[in-house]
């Protein structure tokens, strides 16, 4: 019985990942970019702060967590825990880095944009 349930949950998760494909939402794109910007320092709090200053709006750590989870599910980012620190009650940080798939989809998104930008007639912007 347990096995059946497990199988069902596992396979349904998988299906979801396949379906979502490589499409990036705008918010996700920004999250990925901030991870790239932060480089070695890309852990939860820093990403949250980066996003808050860039987007000029407050954003909760909880909301960020949801986004990060989604991205990790899609395979765009990977994470690893850092060493223990003296700050933050000795709790370890979780650092995020982009996977190749992540970088690829960022690139795709950028190309798509640039391509479309190039097609915009100059007059209509001024």
């Amino acid at each position, binding site marked *: 019985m347990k096995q059946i349930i497990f199988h069902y949950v596992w396979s349904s998760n998988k299906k979801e990942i396949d379906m979502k494909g490589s499409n990036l939402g705008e918010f996700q794109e920004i999250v990925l970019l901030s991870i790239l910007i932060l480089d070695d320092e890309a852990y939860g*709090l820093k990403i949250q702060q980066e996003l808050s200053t860039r987007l000029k709006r407050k954003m909760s*750590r909880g909301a960020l*967590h*949801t986004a990060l*989870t989604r991205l990790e599910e899609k395979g765009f980012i990977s994470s690893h825990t850092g060493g223990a620190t003296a*700050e*933050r009650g000795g709790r370890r940080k979780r650092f995020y880095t982009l996977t190749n798939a992540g970088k690829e989809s960022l690139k795709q998104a950028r190309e798509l944009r640039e391509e479309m930008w190039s097609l915009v007639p100059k007059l209509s912007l001024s």
Partner: protein
Amino acid sequence: MIGGQLPKLYLKLFEWFCKAELFEELQGDLEEAFEENIKLYGVRKARNIYRLEVLKMIRLSVVGFGQFHSKLNHFSMFRNYLKTSMRSLMKNPLSSFINIFGLSMAIGVCVFTYGFARWTFDTDQFHEQKDRIYLVTSVYDQEDGFPASGITPRPLAKVLAADISAIKNTCRIDYGRVILKHGDEVFHENIHLVDPEYLEFFTFPLKWGSPAALSNHNSIILSERMSEKYFGDENPVGETVIMMFNDQQRKTFEVAGVAQEFPTSRSFHFNFLINYDNIKLVAPDENSNDWGQSVAATLVEIDQPNELENTKKSMTKYLSLRNEKRDDLLISGFELEPLKTLHQKAHNIRSCFAFGSNSDEKAVLFLSIISVFIMALACFNYINIAIISASKRLKEIGIRKTIGASRRLVAVQFLIENLFVTCFALMIGLVLANYLFIPWFEGMFSFSMGFNIASVQLWSYLLGILLFTGISSGIYPALYISKFQVVGIFKGTIRFGRDNALTRILLGFQLILASLLIASGVMFTLNSSYMHNRSWGYEPLSLIYTRLSDPSAYQLLATLMSQNPEVKAVSGASGHLGRSHDDLIVDMPGRKLEVREMGVGAEYLAVTGLQLKTGRWFKAHHQEDKQAIIVNSSFVDSFSLNDPIGAVAKIDSVGYRVIGVVNDFHSYSFEENIEPTIFRLEDPERFNFMAIQVNPEKKLETYEALEKHWASLFPDVPFQGGYQEDTWGDYFREISIHGRFWRAVAVIAILLAGLGLYGLVSLNVAGRTKEFSVRKILGEDYWRMGIRIAKHYARLFGLALCLGGGISYYFVDTIFTISYAYHIPMNGWGVVASVFTLLVVLVLVVFVQLSMLKKRSVVKGLRTE
């Protein structure tokens, strides 16, 4: 430390709902942000931000359904606890029985006490207007006695309503004694004359009819009981009754309403209500503008509590009006007693229209003490048995600890087990209270306390009891048992089956408590028989009496009765011992006091059997004696007269000479203190009572003869006589109920203490099975073994009984002083009986153990453990 500044509750909350694997990083981030925020915005804002962040964490991706799994583990752990509890309950039926029985008894008593307290404190609280209605009381200048009286000047209500704007409404109450006739039903009845506001002031809803009818002078409103008495179950609205006020006055009233059954918890009610304007019929000389006259109660409605002081102040202007008319008894002020608390104050207000609940409050106090005692007995039993029987669970505890249960978990397990037992006991206790204790108590006092199982308050009280009992009885055993070291358990170095200092102290306490309750039971029983035999100060057994209805009645009836050979003497009086008296003010040099007064025939005092201490009786037809009084000893003491004979007492500025002193006597019951009393000569035309001294053996026949004569003389007026020994009504029944009640408590105490002792001794013997088996083999005789078992407790018993005896002596003495005005002189019988009973219990317990020891096989005994 910055970590210490985090909002603890939110941290806990977050830790609770967050997925375990996410908690470290998320809390780390939040904490780091918190530290930065402190620098940026200060602690307060940082804490707020943290709180907000935690709340925003409540989302699918963070909230830990993953932890559900570990919750399931908890569940099965608790299920396991329950299973083990059940098993250990089943395995040790004796201990379980003692525990559950004791706790359910105690809980039953607690629930009963709760029910009674509820009933007491709910008195009158059903009146919706209780916060707005006040009783006006008059304050007297008198030195002693009651500080205030409910009797107020007659015109007061009218002028208050007219003059003082804060007073919205007023209502007067007066009483009348009438003969009520409907068809063949003729009875003497007490009626209330009230203003139409009565039914607005007090929440006595009507079953039939309308309250507005009270403004009609010809309407009468009945209580449900009276409606049943006269009309059965029928709706009587529209029927008529004839009210006879005296010989001349009679009036027909139409029934306009019937009240619903009154709530059980009330300090006053009515039988019949008629409009106050009928007062002329009751008191022909009534004058509603005469400040010298008075009314039984004046009630006012004041909506604004802050107007109270002003109202009182403005009421002082009426004092002079009243005091001009009655300079014999000056009023120094008026007070306003709120209806809400009236029942608590009523015993301090003379002639208050409501009864006080003071004696009930005393009873609540006693019951609470008793419940605490019994609860303590039961809890101590539990603790003792749990500690001693821990030996049987040692291996289980050892294994649990080895597998990884912490001390806390083991303690929790035992606490839960105890809560489980208490739960069980709670159910039984509730049933005991509802179907045994409360009906028994209600039956004894023939009242209903309206106990209702479906009340939120009751259940929250029960929950409180459950937790309190469960934890207070379980906490020590749980801590004690969970302390055992695993190594010690398996090595067998832990000594078990022995009582420690605590169990001994608790047992000692139990013995003391039990001896208190047993001594009370014995003393209350002794007291009730003592009271039965206590002299009333006169001869009630050879006395019958009857109330007289009109001025000629005495002469007519006395002539007839004197012819009866069994009648020794006949006399009359304006009042009668045990029935009624007047109050008046006596002025003597140095002291002015209110005393009881009775106008009597010359032979009345001798007929009733009062004993003359000094001086002489009245002489019939002696003109001089018209200005003479006979007083009782208490009168002499109150006025501190050295030589009472010849002293002159002023009554209404007329001087009366004391010619005799009678010994003190109890006119109503032993419940009240003996009051100073005077007797005056009175003309037979003004006698309200006739007292007849008869041959005690022929009392019944004489009484029937009296009844017959009455019926032939006054066929219209119901006979109102009685045996003198019945005048105290339920007093002796009540006294004997006290005995019964305390006996029941004592029985419960003996049972609990006995069971506890039995459990303790049997576990102790069980722990020494091997020792006794060896003794048996070596041929020690059983008597010695018995002494050996008993010896273990000898010192404890000695000490506890000495202490208990002393304490119970003072305990009973205190209770007696609080509850009775007169009681049996304290003696040592209660103490002796309680010591004796407890010793018998000990001997019995040892004896039972011995006989079990005799039967037990030695081989099995040696093989234990």
